[in-house]
């Protein structure tokens, strides 16, 4: 697949705010912001990320139960 390459201007700021009041708010500036925007337009081909995406589908299939729990399960 071909990708669209963007020239992302530096000196941009990106703000990451948790919606529910949890976690750390982060403001990204300059190169950090450019890196984020480039990633949005061109998803990383990092082999670790792509391999983990595949494994995550397997892990979900293996572990996830759609049945909620409120009681201790028994064998």
């Amino acid at each position, binding site marked *: 697949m071909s990708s669209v390459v963007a020239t992302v201007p530096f000196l941009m*700021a990106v703000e*990451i705010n948790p919606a529910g009041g*949890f*976690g750390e708010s982060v403001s990204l500036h300059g190169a950090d912001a450019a*890196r984020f925007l480039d990633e949005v*337009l061109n998803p990383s081909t*990092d082999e670790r990320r792509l391999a983990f995406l595949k494994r995550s589908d397997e892990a*979900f299939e293996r572990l*996830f139960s759609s049945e909620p729990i409120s009681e201790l399960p028994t064998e």
Partner: protein
Amino acid sequence: MAPQLRQLVLPLDDRLFRAVRDFDCLGEGHRDDPVAENVNGFLAEGRFLPSLEQGISSTYLLLDPKVNPILIGYSTLTFDSVRLTNAERRQMEELIGIAEFGALRIQMIGIDRRHQGQGHGRALLGAITGLARRLSQDVALRFLLADANVRKVGWYESHGFVANRAARERNRTDPERSISMRFDLLDALRDPEPEDRALLVAALE
């Protein structure tokens, strides 16, 4: 029965409540580790309950009735977003039509010390990522976010997470604090139609 990841719903029965209270992720490697203490107390001390009651977050338990303790680990998730500041909103909207990215935040993730070192953390993170991937098929969800224990940044990076701030910025922070990281849930961008591509390239030039 193999380990299962199941969403916790209220009210808890007494036996499950005791299992939750018994959770302990503070092994030898987590002495004087305030982030790990927070992860431990959030579940074992019941601090997850108010946000669960109010529908702000969801808590998932990794359990296996064949092992002792039955509760292997847990994770609490909440919806979040990656936003652009006002100064960049317009430019970003012009580039790709949106200025805000949906995200699922891993608010907490922990493995009981009696089950650590057996790959459960990787499996739990994988299942959560798989869950986020499925949610992203129905709702606008591009990233998985985590406030990683600074001692675990390498572990997250080994799974493809990247820090939201460069190391030079991170080094300025309190070493006991967590590091904001993100994971892109998208395999790759779908190829746009040729006409759309031409318009997009023209907009970027």
